[in-house]
């Protein structure tokens, strides 16, 4: 089969690889009908997250049709079923899964000794996302083996196009969880840093959850226009001061809720010296993340407010203003998304026509063009916001 394979920093190729096989009785194989490139795939493209090996298949936003099931799938899936595959692999049986904390499933990371060392405890296995999270082959391919398939799936009905359902795999529940974690109240102003695909979903989620005002921060006109279309007031950080504008829009009080949809690769600008220092330290491996957005959120968030982190961080961040964080009594909530905790509700909202997540797609191309699209997406060429690949 064809698959997008990581060969090294900034080197992804469309290779011919062997087809996946059933390895365990709880496995299923799907024929991929649609998959997407996620912003967090770019961290792997740049080799900023440790644990990738040449030959790893990329991709964790995938859906398709079941073509083979193991004997232990127990009737929960059958050939021909149409499923979206959540990026977190879950067993459905461990203590964390029973609590709904699916992204920290204790069972599915088959290289848990690595995660135990790096994070202190293992987290769930993830598709196509380094050997720290299991080294599972990803879904930017013609076929995908889904481990623990009896639990790791979202069954979706026929009649709704892939484009509306695909993002249940990651970015829609990620944006949703980022907003839910904020405990949004009807009087709240929610400020969202980053208007990439997750930021766009977080904006819509905050609106759906009844925020009084949503403010979106980015520097790319196409992303800001999409954020405005979704109901946000926008701030272009290249032409305006984020701190001043946020104060102005909140009568000097600061937003009650702040969401980070940027993560470890925040924009580097000469006018923001901390970003230059972070980049220099990242280059010599003295710091793994560039946490400018975290610093700004802590500084600007209203005392007693909530900071929700959906953007991916991989390791160590320097110079976080813990004094402000503690003295302002802020709460921080983070985490990879507990996808299956939210998807029943989100699928119902899609079916009811409350939201159509396909609004974010700007490019749809065959799988073979995937490597070039990584560059287009990374360079923000052709006003690219979200790429869907068709195997």
């Amino acid at each position, binding site marked *: *089969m064809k*698959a997008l*394979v990581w*060969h090294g*920093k*900034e*080197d*992804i*190729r*469309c*290779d*011919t*690889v*062997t*087809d*996946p*096989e059933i*390895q365990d009785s709880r496995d299923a194989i799907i024929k991929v009908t649609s998959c997407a490139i996620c912003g967090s795939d770019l961290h792997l493209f740049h080799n900023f997250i440790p644990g990738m*090996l*040449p*030959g790893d298949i990329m991709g964790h936003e995938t859906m398709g049709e079941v073509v083979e099931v193991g004997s232990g799938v127990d009737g929960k899936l059958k050939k021909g079923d149409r499923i979206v595959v959540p990026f977190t692999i879950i067993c459905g049986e461990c203590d964390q899964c029973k609590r709904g904390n699916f992204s920290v499933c204790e069972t599915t990371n*088959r290289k848990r000794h690595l995660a135990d060392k790096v994070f202190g405890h293992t987290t769930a296995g993830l598709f196509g996302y380094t050997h720290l999270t299991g080294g599972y*082959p990803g879904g930017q*391919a013609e076929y995908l*083996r889904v481990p623990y398939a009896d639990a790791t799936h979202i069954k979706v009905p026929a009649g709704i196009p892939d484009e509306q359902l695909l993002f249940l795999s990651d970015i829609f529940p990620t944006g949703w969880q980022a907003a839910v974690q904020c405990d949004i109240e*009807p009087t709240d102003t929610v400020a969202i840093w980053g208007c990439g695909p997750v930021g*766009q979903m977080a904006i*819509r989620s905050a*609106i*759906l959850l*009844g925020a009084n005002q949503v403010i979106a921060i980015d520097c*790319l*006109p*196409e992303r800001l*226009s*999409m954020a*405005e*279309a*979704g*109901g946000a007031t926008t701030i272009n950080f*290249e032409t305006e001061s984020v701190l001043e504008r946020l104060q102005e829009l909140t009568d000097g009080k600061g937003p009650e809720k702040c969401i980070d949809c940027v993560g470890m690769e925040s924009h580097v600008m000469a006018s923001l010296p901390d970003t230059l220092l972070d*980049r220099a330290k990242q*280059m*010599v491996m003295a710091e793994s993340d560039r946490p400018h957005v975290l610093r700004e959120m802590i500084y600007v968030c209203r005392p007693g407010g909530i900071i929700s982190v959906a953007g991916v961080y991989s390791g160590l961040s320097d110079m976080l203003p813990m004094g402000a964080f503690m003295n302002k009594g802020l709460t921080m909530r983070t985490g990879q998304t507990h996808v299956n905790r939210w998807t029943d509700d989100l699928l119902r909202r899609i079916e009811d*026509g*409350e*939201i*159509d997540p396909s*609004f*974010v797609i700007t490019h749809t191309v065959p799988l*073979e063009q995937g*490597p070039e699209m*990584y*560059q287009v997406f990374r*360079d*923000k*060429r*052709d*006003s690219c*916001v979200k790429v869907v690949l068709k195997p």
Partner: protein
Amino acid sequence: MFHFSNIVRTKGDPKILESGPSLKQPVDQLARALGWFSIGLGVVEFFAPRRVTETLGMEGHETMVRAFGVREILAGIMSLSVDKNAGLWARVGGDGLDAAALLSGLTPDNPKKGNIALALLMVGGIAMLDYRAAQDTKPRRPPRDARRKLYPNRSGFPKGIESIRTAARQIAAHAGQNEVKQGDERRIP
């Protein structure tokens, strides 16, 4: 390369049969080679500055050579990173500094002026490679003033944003009423 990576695959996971074209261009290989060369030269300059000054007949300039070594190492690291273009331009600037420092040592009374002339020739050649690589690895991001497509009609709310806001307000008001009721019940002894 992939034959080796296939060996470490978990049994049953897909293995590469045939590799597709690489995104890497020849200039990326050149940038990589220049990056490693820069680090190598920097290490020599930093740890053995006396050998360098003796070879060039420029004794007494060890501190400057050591500083140049640090600069070479930093430029090399940058040339190997995703910001390679900045690293390569830093190298082009560094080539200018190297040339200026060498020229200052090219005096008639320097018995090693032949070595300096040779070094200048090398710096010139490498500067050409640096310049070419820096030109060819320019970031392909569109310029800030480039025309971009905008997406003012992509709300994502098929029923319209106002209908969603109204529904959210109604749900919040309903939830608020329920909370008040529960609060009243809790106050009943």
